[in-house]
C-alpha cells in the first residue's frame, strides 16, 4: 500500500517557486455544493416525529432517539488534519484507490465481506462482516460466502450475493491500481486483458444468499483478501456512475457516507442512518455526527493548525515527534504492517551464494538497529526481529537469529568467512534511493560494518529510477520498504521473495525450498499449520540463507488531543475506526 504523505514538500517547493505566479480565471469558488445525500430513510422521519410529539409512548422511546445523530447529539464534529497531508486524495472509489490515506475514508463508507479483528494484536483473526459465514474447500481453491440477512446500503438497496458479483465486475472494468488482484479469481486474468466479458469464477445465488468464488490457484488467505477495499460492495448508483462515482455524493454500507461531493480542500462524512453495526454486534450509538477531512498542503502546517486548535488530530512531522509525545496523545505505539529492510542479490558474486553465507550473517548481526531507530527516527519505529511484522496472522516474535546487535557473533562469523577463504576485493555497495531520508541509516550501517572489518560504501540512486534499476538486477545490498496491502504472511513472503516475483519486487532471491514452503502455505487452510509453514519459509530467508536484513517496522503517526478525543486508535493496517471515536463535551 502506498502511503502518500510527504515530508520533503518544501524541497519540491523551492524548485517550483522558480516558475510560478498567478493566472486569471472566473469567479468560481471550489465546489462542494449543498446537495444532501440520498438517504432520508423512513426510520429517521419516524424518529423525529416521535421526538416532537414527545412522551406519547413509554419505554422504547429513549432508545430510539439516541440513534438520531445530528440532533445536537452525543457525537459532535471531528476535524481531521492528519490524514490528507501533502495532496488531496486522488481516488475515493474502492475500486480505484491505492493509498492508505484515502482508505481511511473508504473504509468508513463501506463494509466488506470480512474484517480483521486486531483485538489481540499478536494473533489477528479474519472475521465475517457483511458475510454471515465464510468457508473454503480443503485446498482453498473454492470459497463460499453467505451474505447476512438484511444487509443494505444507506439508500435502502439490499445487499445480496449478486451485489458482490456486480461490484467485482465493476472493479475489474475500472482497472484501478489494484485490479490485478482479480487474477486470483478464475477467469480474472482474461477479464482484465479483455479476452472475456465476465469472470467465470464468480457465481452468485441470491435465493440462497450465496457467493461462490473459484480461484485460479488454491489460496487459503483469500478470506483476508476478500475484505480488502477492491472487493467492497458498491450500490447500483456506483455501477451506473462508473469512474465518476467518487466525485458524487458517495454512499455505501459502512457507518458513514459523504455529506456532499468531495473537494480538494475538504471531505465530509456524516453517519449512515441505515447502518446496522459493526462486528461483535456493537453499534456505537454515540458516534461522531460528522468527520471533516481537511487537506493540509504541508505537514508542519497541519501540525501547527492542530496545535492552534483548528482540528482534532494531525500527522506528526518527523521533527515534531518529541513534542507530540510530550504534549499530546499519539498512535506512535501502534505497529503498522510495514517493513523497512535491506535485500541481498543472490546473483552477485561478492555477497551471494553459499560461500558468502557467513559474510551475510556477519553483516546482519553487526548492524545496531536500536541506534538507527533512536538516531534517525527518534525512536518512532519498532526494531525488527523479522521481515513480517506483528499484526500479520502467523507472526512470531524473535524469528530472526541474526537481527540482534551482537558484535561478538558478527566478528566470529566474519573471521570464519575469512578463514574459509573469503576475500573482499573492494567495498560492498549499500544501495538506497537518494534524498528520501535513508542516508543516515546507511551511514550507521557502514560504521557498524567497519567495526568488524567489513568495508562498505554508500551507493545512492536517483529516487525515480531506483526500484526499476533493482528490478533490472542492480541490487547488491539494497534498501526496500513494503506496506502490507492486506494482512497476510504471503503479502510479504510471496510478493517480495518468491521466484515468481523475481525482477518484479524480488531483487534476486531464488530458493527452491523457500518457494516450496510458500506455495504449500498458500494452499494450507488450517491456520496453525499455515503459520508454521510461513515461519519456516521466513526462517530459510533470514537464518538459513540470510538474504534479507530487517531493520525496523513502521508505527502509527497521528497526534490527537486525548482530553477531548477517546478511542482514537490505529489498527496495524493503519486504519482508524471512526465510528468508535467519541468526543468529550
Amino acid at each position: 500500500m502506498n502511503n502518500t504523505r510527504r515530508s520533503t514538500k518544501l524541497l519540491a517547493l523551492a524548485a517550483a517557486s522558480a516558475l510560478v505566479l498567478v493566472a486569471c480565471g472566473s469567479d468560481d469558488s471550489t465546489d462542494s455544493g449543498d446537495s444532501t445525500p440520498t438517504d432520508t430513510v423512513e426510520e429517521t422521519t419516524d424518529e423525529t416525529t416521535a421526538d416532537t410529539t414527545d412522551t406519547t409512548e413509554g419505554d422504547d422511546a429513549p432508545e430510539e432517539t439516541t440513534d438520531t445523530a445530528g440532533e445536537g447529539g452525543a457525537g459532535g464534529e471531528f476535524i481531521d488534519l492528519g490524514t490528507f497531508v501533502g495532496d488531496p486524495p486522488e481516488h475515493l472509489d474502492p475500486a480505484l484507490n491505492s493509498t492508505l490515506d484515502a482508505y481511511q475514508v473508504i473504509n468508513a463508507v463501506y463494509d466488506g465481506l470480512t474484517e480483521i479483528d486486531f483485538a489481540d494484536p499478536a494473533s489477528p483473526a479474519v472475521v465475517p462482516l457483511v458475510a454471515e459465514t465464510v468457508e473454503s474447500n480443503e485446498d482453498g481453491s473454492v470459497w463460499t460466502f453467505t451474505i447476512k440477512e438484511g444487509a443494505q446500503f444507506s439508500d435502502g438497496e439490499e445487499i445480496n450475493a449478486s451485489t458482490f458479483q456486480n461490484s467485482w465486475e465493476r472493479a475489474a472494468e475500472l482497472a484501478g491500481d489494484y485490479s490485478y488482484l482479480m487474477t486470483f479469481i478464475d477467469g480474472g486474468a482474461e477479464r482484465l486483458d479483455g479476452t472475456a466479458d465476465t469472470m467465470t469464477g464468480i457465481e452468485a445465488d441470491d435465493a440462497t444468499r450465496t457467493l461462490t468464488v473459484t480461484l485460479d490457484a488454491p489460496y487459503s488467505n483469500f478470506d483476508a483478501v476478500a475484505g480488502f477495499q477492491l472487493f467492497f460492495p458498491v450500490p447500483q448508483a456506483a455501477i451506473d456512475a462508473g469512474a465518476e462515482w467518487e466525485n458524487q455524493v458517495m454512499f455505501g454500507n459502512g457507518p458513514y457516507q459523504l455529506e456532499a461531493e468531495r473537494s480538494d480542500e475538504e471531505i465530509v462524512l456524516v453517519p449512515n442512518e441505515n447502518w446496522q453495526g459493526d462486528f461483535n454486534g456493537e453499534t456505537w450509538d454515540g458516534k461522531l455526527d460528522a468527520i471533516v477531512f481537511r487537506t493540509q498542503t504541508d505537514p508542519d502546517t497541519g501540525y501547527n493548525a492542530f496545535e492552534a486548535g483548528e482540528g482534532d488530530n494531525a500527522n506528526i512531522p518527523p521533527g515534531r515527534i518529541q513534542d507530540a509525545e510530550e504534549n499530546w496523545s499519539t498512535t506512535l505505539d501502534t505497529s503498522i504492517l510495514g517493513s523497512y529492510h535491506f535485500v541481498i542479490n543472490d546473483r552477485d558474486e561478492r555477497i551471494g551464494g553459499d560461500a558468502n553465507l557467513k559474510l551475510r550473517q556477519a553483516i546482519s548481526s553487526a548492524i545496531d538497529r536500536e541506534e538507527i531507530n533512536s538516531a534517525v527516527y527518534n525512536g518512532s519505529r519498532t526494531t525488527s526481529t523479522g521481515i513480517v511484522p506483528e499484526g500479520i496472522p502467523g507472526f512470531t516474535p524473535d524469528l530472526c537469529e541474526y537481527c540482534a546487535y551482537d558484535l561478538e557473533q558478527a566478528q566470529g562469523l566474519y573471521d570464519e568467512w575469512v578463514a574459509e577463504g573469503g576475500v573482499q576485493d573492494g567495498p560492498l555497495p549499500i544501495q538506497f534511493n537518494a534524498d528520501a531520508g535513508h542516508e543516515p541509516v546507511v551511514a550507521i550501517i557502514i560504521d557498524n560494518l567497519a567495526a568488524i572489518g567489513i568495508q562498505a560504501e554508500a551507493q545512492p540512486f536517483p529516487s525515480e529510477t531506483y526500484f526499476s534499476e533493482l528490478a533490472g538486477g542492480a541490487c547488491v545490498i539494497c534498501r526496500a520498504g513494503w506496506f502490507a496491502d492486506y494482512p497476510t504472511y504471503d503479502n510479504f513472503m510471496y510478493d517480495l521473495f518468491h521466484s515468481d516475483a523475481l525482477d518484479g519486487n524480488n531483487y534476486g532471491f531464488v530458493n527452491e525450498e523457500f518457494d516450496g514452503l510458500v506455495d504449500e502455505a498458500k494452499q494450507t487452510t488450517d491456520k496453525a499449520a499455515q503459520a508454521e509453514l510461513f515461519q519456516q519459509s521466513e526462517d530459510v530467508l533470514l537464518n538459513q540463507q540470510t538474504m534479507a536484513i530487517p531493520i525496523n517496522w513502521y508505527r502509527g503517526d497521528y497526534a490527537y488531543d486525548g482530553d477531548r478525543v477517546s478511542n482514537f486508535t490505529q489498527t496495524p493496517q493503519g486504519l482508524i475506526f471512526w465510528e468508535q471515536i467519541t468526543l468529550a463535551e
Partner: protein
Amino acid sequence: MTSFIIRRLLLIIPTVFVAVSFLFLIFYALPGDPATLIAGGADRNPNPIQIQQITEQYGLDDPIYVQFFDYWKNVLSGDLGQSFQQGRSVNSILVDKAPNSIRLAMWALLIEIVVGLAVGLYSAIRRYSVADKLTTVGTAALSAIPVFVLGFILQYMFAVYPNKQGWPEWMRLRTSGIAAPRTDEQWFLFFIPTGPDQWRYLVLPAITLASVSTALAARMMRGSMLETLGADYMRTAKAKGLSERRIVVGHGLRNAMLPVVTLIGLDLGATIGSAVLTETVFSWPGLGSTIADAVGNRDLPVVLGLTLAVVVVYSLINLFVDVSYAWFDPRVRLGAGDEP
C-alpha cells in the same frame, strides 16, 4: 503607441511557446518515467503490472515528438489536458484554483501599496529618526527571511501561541485553509471576505505573501522620496513659502512615485512566484500549492497547463507596466514611437 502594444502582444506567443516547450523537454530529461512515480513513489516498490497499465493509459511510450505535437495540438484547441494524478481536466483545475490565488495576490498588493508606501514616505520625511532606523532594519530583515519561515513564525505567534494561552476565539488567527470547515466562503466584490471568521483565514497568508514586496516598496519609496526632497525644484517650492505638506504631497510624491510604481508592477511577478510557498504553508487552495504538488508528483499536464496560464498573465502584466511607464515618462514613449 497602438502598434507598440500590438507588437508586444504578438511577442507573447513565442514567449509562451518557448517557456512551456522548455518545461516539457525538461520533464523528459529528468530521470525515471512518470508511470513509476504515479504507481509507487519513493517509499515503496511499485507493481510492474500497474506501471504498464499507466504507461498505456497516458500514451507515455509514444516517442517524445509525438507526445509534444499532440500536446500543442490540444492546447491550441483550448484543452490543457488531463491530470495524471487526479484524472481531472486541467482546465477545471485552473478555473477552480485561479480565483483564490488572485484574491490572495490582490490583498498582498494592497498591503504592499498601503503599508509599503506609507512606511517609506514616513521614514523619508522623518529621516534619521528612531522610526526611520527601525524601518531600515526591519525592512532589511523582512526581505531576508524566507517566506515559509516567516509563515511558520506567524502561525506560531498568532495561532498556536494564543490557543495554548487559552485566549478568546476572536484573538486567534487561522493557519490552514481558506474558510471554516463545512462552509463555502463568500466574497464581496470578488475579493473582500464577508464574515469575521473568513478574515481570520486571510490575514496571515496575505501578510506573508506581501512581506518581501512590502519591504522592497518601503525601501524604494524612502530612497526615491529622499532624492526628490533634495531636488532643486523642491527648494524652490520651499522658497515660495508653501507648507511642508503641500511640498511633500503636491510636488514630491508625484515625482517620487514613478520608480516605485514601476517596481510594484515588475515585482508582481516575484510576488506571485512566492505564492507557491505561501499557499503551501497555509494550505491556501490556489494555483501555487497546486503547481507545487504537481511538480512533486511529476504531473506533467498540470504543471504545463497552469504554467502556461501563469506565463500569459505575467507577460500581460509586463506589457501593462511597460505601457504605463511610457505613459508616465514621455521620453520612453517617444523613443518607442521612433522605432521602425
